[in-house]
């Protein structure tokens, strides 16, 4: 299905720059902006350091006190390694594909999604299952139940868990292409609102998350880094 460019201006006039209506249900959340992302990124770095450093120091201390404590020291080092990895795994999980609908709905949904994005994004989605969408905060990779933000600068990525509201009837039966299209349209409407509504699952080093992503999805992250 081909979608012709929309005529401008539309009639009746569109409302002022859209704010995602879903934001109204979360009045306690500060609207995400670049400064907010930096703050959150710094907080996550601090948290990671707070996990890694004590366990590492404990391992070193135990070894210095008594080499026979090596097994305990190893457990401490394992903790220092595993905890950030678990966070990264949680971040990567938001991109995992969900269940598939029947073939025909999937085909129709993919057709609509394909019409919403450009050729390059279509091709990338066919390879990786993720849609690359440039935004003001950075470049987004949109999946079926989450999105990854690669900011314009820095080496961090932000992983968001966000999906079609499961409390709404029919949400669970949507084909995968539609699930992505829902998120994509919301993102295009109000990028900051999108990031506000979504739950942050991970903010941290790109390399750490990349290792936890499915192998076929990693090229999408590489493409996002190049595109920013």
């Amino acid at each position: 299905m081909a979608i012709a460019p929309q005529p401008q201006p539309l009639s009746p006039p569109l409302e002022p720059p859209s704010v995602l209506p879903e934001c109204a249900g979360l009045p306690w959340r500060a609207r995400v902006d670049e400064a907010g992302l930096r703050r959150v990124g710094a907080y996550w770095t601090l948290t990671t350091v707070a996990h890694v450093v004590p366990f590492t120091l404990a391992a070193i201390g135990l070894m210095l006190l008594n080499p026979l404590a090596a097994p305990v020291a190893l457990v401490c080092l394992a903790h220092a390694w595993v905890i950030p990895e678990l966070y990264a795994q949680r971040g990567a999980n938001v991109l995992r594909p969900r269940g598939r609908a029947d073939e025909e709905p999937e085909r129709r949904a993919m057709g609509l999604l394909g019409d919403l994005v450009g050729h390059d994004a279509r091709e990338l989605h066919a390879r990786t299952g993720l849609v690359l969408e440039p935004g003001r905060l950075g470049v987004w990779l949109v999946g079926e139940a989450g999105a990854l933000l690669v900011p314009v600068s820095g080496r961090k990525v932000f992983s968001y868990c966000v999906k079609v509201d499961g409390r709404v009837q029919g949400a669970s039966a949507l084909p995968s292409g539609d699930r992505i299209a829902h998120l994509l349209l919301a993102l295009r409407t109000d990028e900051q609102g999108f990031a506000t509504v979504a739950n942050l699952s991970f903010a941290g080093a790109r390399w750490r998350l990349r290792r936890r992503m499915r192998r076929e999805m990693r090229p999408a992250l590489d493409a996002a880094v190049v595109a920013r």
Partner: protein
Amino acid sequence: MSKLIRMDHTGHSTVVEWSPDDPVAVEAAVEAFRAELDRGYLAMVTTGPGQAEQVRELPVEADLVILRLPISGG
């Protein structure tokens, strides 16, 4: 011909089609549009590359209006 589509379990369904210069069809389209909004759907129109807007009244001259469900943090 303009089209109002709804993303649903079928991939997407065409709710109504109308021609902007056909008042009867427009009226029917507006009614169908409002009914979908009452069901909880949100209406979106693409306004340019990578841009979309939510509309609460049917943009009669738009070629395509897409209905989506609300999103939430997972």
